[in-house]
């Protein structure tokens, strides 16, 4: 088990190197630092001197891969590739184009993101399982058919409409909670209530539908038929046999998402004005701050890989038949 995890972590290194090279190619080769300078400075002030000054200020005035003028190890280290991309491996994200320290920003903005994402995630799973169980209880009836149709209809509504509709109904018409904003401490729940509610409702369509198929897959198994033949009641079959067995695929399916909760939700955070990582990314994209986008790509891929490893571990934990070696 331990050896397996170590091997998976080692396997992650080439993937991270690949991510790094890809982002480097995207940001520096396809789009040269000169192009970036032009788009950052705006059209008015573009003179060769201004571009050079901008490049020097942000450390883009070096060669891409090999610095022929420097001596010794500096031929490789005193380059854009080393200072901007390789340094990410040491979690040294440097400064954003507006001069702020990205590491500090990320570590402070992580918590509001988690404050929204964690409750949404937990409540969402609980609600989806409850709804799916109720639908499975009425399997192959008219109610089941209409419920599936309802799930598909819920899935077909854009996430934007859930947010806009939720803000309009709950915050504007009924005036139950503030429309947007964020406040730490004891007042936080007021601001978190609506984002969490919107996140949960928006997820019901696809979530409950997926859980329903998982439950039905279990309901067709032999042990369910045996239990029914022995005279077990439908309720005890549902909660005693189907639910525990279906929890295995549910668990392994959601574990991969847990690390990415840190990244928060782009849309929810920007609509509700929550100062988390999601709105951080959105602001970076809108102001074309490539230093932040690059760092977030790197963090995101690390979290995804951690999620994959956690999934493998959760398989062995949930299903004793599986052994990792």
């Amino acid at each position, binding site marked *: 088990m331990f050896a397996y995890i170590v091997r998976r972590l080692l396997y992650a290194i080439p993937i991270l190197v690949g991510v790094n090279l890809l982002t480097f190619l995207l940001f520096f080769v396809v789009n040269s630092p000169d192009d970036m300078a032009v788009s950052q400075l705006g059209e008015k002030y573009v003179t060769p001197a201004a571009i050079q000054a901008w490049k020097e200020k942000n450390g883009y005035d070096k060669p891409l891969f090999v610095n022929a003028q420097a001596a010794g190890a500096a031929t490789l280290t005193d380059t854009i590739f080393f200072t901007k991309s390789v340094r990410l491996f040491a979690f040294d994200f440097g400064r954003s184009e507006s001069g702020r320290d990205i590491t500090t920003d990320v570590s402070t903005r992580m918590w509001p993101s988690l404050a929204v994402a964690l409750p949404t995630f937990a409540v969402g799973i609980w609600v989806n399982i409850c709804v799916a169980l109720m639908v499975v209880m009425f399997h192959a009836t008219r109610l089941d058919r209409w419920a599936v149709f309802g799930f598909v209809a819920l899935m077909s509504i854009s996430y*934007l409409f859930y947010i*806009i509709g939720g803000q309009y109904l709950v915050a504007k018409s009924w005036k139950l909670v503030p429309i947007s904003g964020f406040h730490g401490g004891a007042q936080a729940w007021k601001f978190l209530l609506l984002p969490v509610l919107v996140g949960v409702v928006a997820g019901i369509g696809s979530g409950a539908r997926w859980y329903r198929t998982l439950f039905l897959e279990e309901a067709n198994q032999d042990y369910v038929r045996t239990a029914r033949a022995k005279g077990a009641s439908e309720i005890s079959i549902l909660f005693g046999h189907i639910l525990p067995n279906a929890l295995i695929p549910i668990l392994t399916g959601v574990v991969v998402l847990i690390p990415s909760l840190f990244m928060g939700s782009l849309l929810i955070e920007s609509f509700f004005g929550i100062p988390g990582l999601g709105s951080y990314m959105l602001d970076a994209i809108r102001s074309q701050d490539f230093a932040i986008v690059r760092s977030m790509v790197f963090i995101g891929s690390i979290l995804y890989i951690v999620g994959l490893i956690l999934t493998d571990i959760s398989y062995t934990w949930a299903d004793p038949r599986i052994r990792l070696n």
Partner: protein
Amino acid sequence: MKIVLLWSDVLVFLLVLSLCLFFYKLRQDPQIRQRWSQVFASRLGMVTFTVIATYVAVALLDSMHFRRALDAPPGLAAQEVFYDNKVTSVLDIMLDGMGERFERTYSAPFALRSFEKQNMKDERGRDIRDFPALRHAGTHLAQADDKWPDVARKSARALLWGLLLSALWLAPQWLLLRGSPRPWRASWAVQAAVLCAAVWLVSISRHYHVLGTDLGGADVAYQSIKGVRTGVLLGTLATLIMLPIAVTLGVMAGYFKGWVDDLVQYLYTTLSSIPGILLIAASVLLFQVYIDLNPDFFSIGMEKADARFIALCFILGVTSWSTLCRLIRAETLKISQLGYVQAAHAFGVSHLRILGRHILPNVVHIILITFVLDFSALVLAEAVLSYIGVGIDPSMGSWGNMINGARSELSREPAVWWTLSGAFIFMFVLVLAANLFSDLVRDAFDPRTSTRRSPL
């Protein structure tokens, strides 16, 4: 008149042509024919397919572009013809100038007056502040009270015309298909409803703004219809670009195994570990910088928007092939172990021939399911990307841009709800139809679920 051929137009007509060829070829396979007839045996399959076909037809009509010839200016020799800078499509002609009736700013559905007050003079020349009358709504009415009776009268007349048109349109279908075992009636009902609604919309729009107008005074119903082309094209073109990459790499990885497999697996794990939205946003931003730095490549504004649109399709395609590639690789691994592939090996059949004859036809169902499933996801993604600011060019109509422009307008008092509802209805109907249809296709084609009939 000068015909304008945008790159996306060329691509979409090629796409339709190749899809027709593809399905014509597939028809020869009895197994696939039987599966399709399972899809169309249900009324739901017929209805959803008709709805999707309607959207595709609107998108195709909107893809035939041309520039109108302008009248020669007086005094100039009429040898040279000047063309309008604005690109018109066949759909614009069919909508009868719906897109040319601009107001000053917001107005509610069927309103006669603008949504915002304005300084103006009354009949005695005094300065007053009131809601000005709209330029293109209810100008034929003597007084405002006549509005609803007039709407009802015009609606009834339009409905009659719509029924007449549907009768003409459906009669040949009825003659040809009345003996068919498939539930064509459901499809005819949808076709008749669509035709009646279209006739009603066009004829009422001559006198009123059915869904109101937006901030810039443009007709919301018109904009929603223009968004159809963007949505349909994005959903199909992005998948079309992704397919060759995913299929080639997936089949090769599963068939050749060894280092090819390692390489392909490495590629798709790397790509899928990058947060998708960031990758897309970064690529679109980079392309935007490229467009800004090379403005000479595009002669009219529409071409620039079109280039950005194609780039977006391309980026969405290139970043989303990993899921399909993974599925195809797994399936190919399974198939290449089967007896007939081993037998082909033993007979010395070449790799290329084995791939083409024995493996590809057996992964077609995965491609088909992915194509239909991804369509609705892409339509939804477009709205989100446009909101983030990396989507469709604002000069090109799209539902995402409509939502983005109107998202904060619900907080006004009274709320401006009609822009959002226009985009909502058109988008919801398309995505719902596509989702329901994809469920049916998956049930029919996926060997795992085909034995167990889905309740829908």
